[in-house]
């Protein structure tokens, strides 16, 4: 299933290159400015790809450092930062979502660290994570309306009356 080749490499070290199979439907984007690989994957193949990257003997990305959401003008993007404590390498996965109803599968089953990071992304950006254990607001009060990190957020909470002069 996997070929160990030197041409298409995920982790740019000669000892641990793998090729991601066509069935994952990934797209390699430009590297970040400090040389970290970026992979764009579609939402329904995310869990398979993440499991593959975690379990494969040559990559072993066993630590999920953070999950962040980005509000670009035409879509939402969820960015996953993976790290391998064995090979000390970084990897970034990006998933694009549409603006009307952004939703993606949750990685809670793979990494326990994803639990609170996804709650925070839901809280601040409104991205739904399917099959999450308990998706509720974590940083803002429970009765807050709206998602502040969106670019079109207008702050009209009733607590604003305290800030009036």
């Amino acid at each position, binding site marked *: 299933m996997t070929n160990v080749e030197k041409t298409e490499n995920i982790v740019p070290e000669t000892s641990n290159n793998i090729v991601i199979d066509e069935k994952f439907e990934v797209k390699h984007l430009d590297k970040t400015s400090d040389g970290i690989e970026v992979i764009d994957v579609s939402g329904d193949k995310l869990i398979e790809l993440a499991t593959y990257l975690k379990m494969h003997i040559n990559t072993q990305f066993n630590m999920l450092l953070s999950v962040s959401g980005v509000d670009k003008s035409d879509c939402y993007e969820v960015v996953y930062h993976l790290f391998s404590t064995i090979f000390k390498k970084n990897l970034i996965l990006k998933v694009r979502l549409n603006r009307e109803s952004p939703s993606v599968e949750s990685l809670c089953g793979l990494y326990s660290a994803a639990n609170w990071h996804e709650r925070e992304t839901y809280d601040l950006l409104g991205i739904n994570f399917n099959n999450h254990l308990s998706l509720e607001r974590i940083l803002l009060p429970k009765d807050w309306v709206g998602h502040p990190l969106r670019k079109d957020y207008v702050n009209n*909470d009733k607590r604003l009356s*305290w*800030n009036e002069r």
Partner: protein
Amino acid sequence: MQIILTAVDFIYNWGRSNSLWPLTFATSCCGIEMISASAATFDISRFGSEVFRATPRQADLMITAGTVTHRMAPALIRLYEQMPEPKYVIAMGACAVTGGMFENDSYSVVRGVDRLVPVDVYLPGCPPRPEALLDAIIKLQKQMKTETILDRKKYLDAHKPRVTLSEDENCEVLLPNEEFEVIHWGVQKTGYSKDEIATSALSASSQ
């Protein structure tokens, strides 16, 4: 009447002002300077604050050191109401005085603690040095020494919280206190209607 009570006032105020016990209300960065003020280099127990009480029932000074957010505000009000009279508040740090560097466009910071509780001494700085905190305590002690027992009613009226906790336990919103008119510059007006909030210029521009 006041002439008879001057000696009593003097001893009463002297006893109270020289043993102010603060409540540990350290939210943020200014809390570290408050702890430095209580450590060995800048000793706060020289001024009477021998211990920092953890429970508001035994404290008579609340030093709000740090940023107060919308979520923390009901807890602050409840702590203030639990303190027994006579009680005083020092607003320490820029975030507690006016909202500090988050005053411009943060969506979840209360712009100054005096929207919630009445403040006696404002202490600016980001963070203020421990010596500045000691200066604030000295000023508060000087103010306490000018009080008199006969004005207790006026004092109690002026030291109520500016907002009240709502009856609904699940809702964390505070409501304006109807008994307050504008007392001094900085206290919110009472009774905002929803239309006023929606059409005010602030909500449209705070993006």
